C-alpha cells in the first residue's frame, strides 16, 4: 500500500520525475498518486526528501520478515568464474572490493572455485586478499553447468553461511546466480556498480543503474541471507598483489553420483579471437558511433586504434546497422570497459552508452555538437567533424612514429 502525507509534501516534484510508470502528477503543488498505475516499486519513497510517501506491506508485519536467524551468517564470499581453467578477470576485480567489505565488517573473505586442476590459480588468490578458498576440484566440474554449479553452491552456502555472496555480472554469473539465490530463498541484485556497507545496520548497500541508466538505485536485502549481488565487470579495480599473504585452502569433496544433471554441454565454441575479444581488458579503446555512417568508415577508427595500440569499440547504432559485430558494442546491452583512455568519435553519449564506459580514466570526445551529453563525462572535448579531426590526428600520429 502506498501512503501519502499531504502535510509533508513540498511539491518539489522529485517523485514525479523518478516514477517509472508515470503514476504521480503534481496538482496544486501536491503529489497525486494514481494507485492503478503504481507498481509499488519504491522509487518515489526513496526519492522523497520529506518522507511524504511511504510504502507499506498490506499485512502490518515487518516487510519480508523471513524468520531467518541473521546472526548465523558471517563472512564475504566471491564466487570465482573460470573458463577452461583460467580465472575470469572480474574475479580479481571483486577481490579488492570483497576485501574492503570484509574489513569494514571485520569478517573473513573467502573465494569459491569450482573447476578442475586449478591448484596454481587457487593458491594465487591468497595474494589478492582471500583468507580462505573453498575449492571444488573434479573433472566433472571442469565445464560450467548451471544445474551442477547451482547444486554445489547451494550446498556449501548452506553449510558455511556467508552473509554476503558476490559474483561477476557476466553471462555465466547472470545465468547461475539467480538460480542459486532462488534456491536459497534470498534476494539478489543484478549488475551492481557500487557496493558499500551501511555503517549503522551493517547491511550491504547495492547500487545499480536502473531504467537504462537514467537513475541509480540503492538496494538492500535486510531480512534474508546471504545478501547476494552480481557486479558489472570492469567497474571495480583489481587490487595490488601481496605474495606473502596467508590463506587456507579448503578442498570440498565432490561425489558425482549425488547430482542428477539434466542439461548437457555438447560443445563450446570460442568466437571473436582478435580485437573484439580484447575489448573488455584493453587499456585504450577507440569507439565510433552513428556518425561513422558505414562499415568502411570504421577503418578510421581501426587505424587510430592500431596507431595507439588500442581496441575498437562501438555504440549501438553501428551494431544495429551491422557495420560492426555485436561483440564490439559498449554500453548497457553491450560490454563495460574501463580503459585508461577512451576516445569517443561521433557518439552522442546516451545514458545507455555512458554506463558502459564512464569509469574510463581519461575520456576524449570528438563530436560536432557542443551540447552532446558525451562532453559531460569527457576529460578532453573536441568540438569538430570526425572526418576532419580523425584523418588529421592519424596523420600526426604517423609522423610522430
Amino acid at each position, binding site marked *: 500500500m502506498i501512503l501519502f502525507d499531504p502535510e509533508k509534501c513540498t511539491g518539489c516534484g522529485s517523485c514525479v520525475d523518478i516514477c*517509472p510508470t*508515470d503514476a504521480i502528477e503534481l496538482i496544486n503543488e501536491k503529489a497525486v498518486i494514481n494507485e492503478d498505475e503504481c507498481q509499488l516499486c519504491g522509487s518515489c519513497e526513496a526519492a522523497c526528501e520529506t518522507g511524504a510517501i511511504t510504502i507499506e*506491506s*498490506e*499485512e502490518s508485519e515487518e*516487510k519480508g520478515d523471513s524468520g531467518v536467524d541473521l546472526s548465523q551468517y558471517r563472512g564475504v564470499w566471491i564466487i570465482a568464474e573460470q573458463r577452461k581453467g583460467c580465472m575470469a578477470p572480474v574475479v580479481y576485480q571483486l577481490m579488492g572490493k570483497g576485501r574492503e567489505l570484509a574489513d569494514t565488517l571485520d569478517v573473513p573473505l573467502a573465494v569459491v572455485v569450482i573447476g578442475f586442476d586449478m591448484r596454481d590459480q587457487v593458491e594465487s588468490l591468497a595474494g589478492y586478499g582471500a583468507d580462505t578458498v573453498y575449492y571444488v576440484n573434479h573433472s566433472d566440474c571442469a565445464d560450467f553447468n548451471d544445474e551442477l554449479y547451482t547444486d554445489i553452491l547451494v550446498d556449501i552456502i548452506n553449510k558455511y553461511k556467508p552473509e554476503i555472496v558476490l559474483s561477476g555480472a557476466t553471462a555465466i554469473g547472470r545465468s547461475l546466480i539467480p538460480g542459486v539465490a532462488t534456491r536459497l530463498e534470498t534476494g539478489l541484485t543484478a549488475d551492481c556498480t557500487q557496493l558499500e556497507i551501511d555503517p549503522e545496520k551493517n547491511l550491504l548497500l547495492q547500487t545499480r543503474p536502473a531504467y537504462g541508466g537514467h537513475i541509480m*538505485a540503492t538496494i538492500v536485502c535486510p531480512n534474508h541471507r546471504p545478501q547476494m549481488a552480481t557486479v558489472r565487470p570492469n567497474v571495480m579495480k583489481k587490487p595490488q598483489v601481496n605474495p606473502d599473504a596467508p590463506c587456507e585452502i579448503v578442498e570440498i569433496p565432490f561425489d558425482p553420483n549425488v547430482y542428477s544433471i539434466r542439461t548437457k554441454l555438447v560443445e563450446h565454441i570460442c568466437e*571473436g579471437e582478435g580485437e573484439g575479444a580484447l575489448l573488455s581488458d584493453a587499456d585504450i579503446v577507440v569507439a565510433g558511433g552513428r556518425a561513422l555512417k558505414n562499415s568502411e568508415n570504421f577503418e578510421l577508427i581501426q587505424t587510430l586504434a592500431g596507431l595507439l595500440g588500442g581496441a575498437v569499440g562501438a555504440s549501438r547504432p553501428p551494431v544495429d546497422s551491422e557495420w560492426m559485430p555485436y561483440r564490439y558494442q559498449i554500453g548497457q546491452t553491450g560490454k563495460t570497459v574501463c580503459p585508461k583512455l577512451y576516445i569517443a568519435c561521433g557518439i552522442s553519449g546516451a545514458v545507455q552508452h*555512458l554506463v558502459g564506459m564512464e569509469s574510463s580514466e581519461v575520456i576524449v570526445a570528438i563530436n560536432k555538437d557542443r551540447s552532446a551529453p558525451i562532453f559531460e563525462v569527457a576529460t578532453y572535448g573536441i568540438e569538430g567533424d570526425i572526418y576532419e579531426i580523425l584523418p*588529421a590526428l592519424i596523420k600526426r600520429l604517423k609522423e610522430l612514429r
Partner: protein
Amino acid sequence: MNILVFIKQVPYAKEVRLDPKTHTLIRDGVESIINPYDMYAIEEGLRLKESRGGKVTVMTMGPPQAEDALRDALSYGVDDAVLLSDRAFAGADTLATSYTLALGAKNLRDFDLILCGKQAVDGDTGQVGPGMAVRLDIPYVTYVRKIRSVDDGTMRVERIMDDGYEVIDVPLPALLTVVKEINEPRVPSLKNKMRAKKQSIAVWGAADIGATTARLGLAGSATQVTDVFKPERKSNLEWLEGSVDEQVDALVDRLQKLKVG
C-alpha cells in the same frame, strides 16, 4: 508441443533523454509495450507451434491494464492468454515474481516448454526466468540464440556466452530465455487482431493459484530500494579549441602526457 511464454509489460518512452540542465528525465509520450525481448520469445513459440503443432499460451503478472500486453500478444497469433493480477502481487522483486509466475505455470499445468525474454528492459535483471525454472524444478538455458533441433523430448540449443557460444542438450519440459539474435518477429495479422479484441482472457488472483500471501508482492520480496538518485557526472572537461590542426596538436600533446601515441 505446448508452449508457455512469459511476457512483461514495460513502460516505453519513445525518446528517453535527460534534460541537460535539470538532469531530470524528459519522457514525452510514455506508452506501455511488451518487453522487447519477450517479443522474440513469442515469435519462437509461434514458430515451434507452426512446425510441430500444439499451442502457445502467454502469461503475465501485472496490474489490470497488463491485459493490453496480452491482447497484443494474441494479435500475433498466440492461442491463449492468462493474466495474473491481484493487489497482493504488487511490489514484487524477482524472488516474489518468480514464485508467483511459477505457481501460474503450475496452475496451467499443460506445458512442454517455457520461454522468457533474456531480461526485462525496466529492471534489467534477467533473474525471473532462472528463478522460475528452479521453483518448477525444470532445467533451464539462458541467452538462447538458436533452437537447433527437437528430438525425443530433448532440445539442442545454442546459448551466447561472453567468449562465444555453447551448444547444449536439454530435456523437456524446460525453460529457455531468448536473445534477439534468435529470430525476426512477425507483424500481427488482421485476422488475429480481430480475434485478439474479442477473446476472453482468464484472470487469476492469489487464491486461484494457491499462493501463500506472505510470499507475494512486497511482503514476499527480499530486496528493498532504499535510495534512488541521478548518476553523478564528474565534470572536469577541458575543451581543446582552435583550428583542426590546433585541436589535433593539443590532443596529441595530452596523449603524450598520458604516455600513449
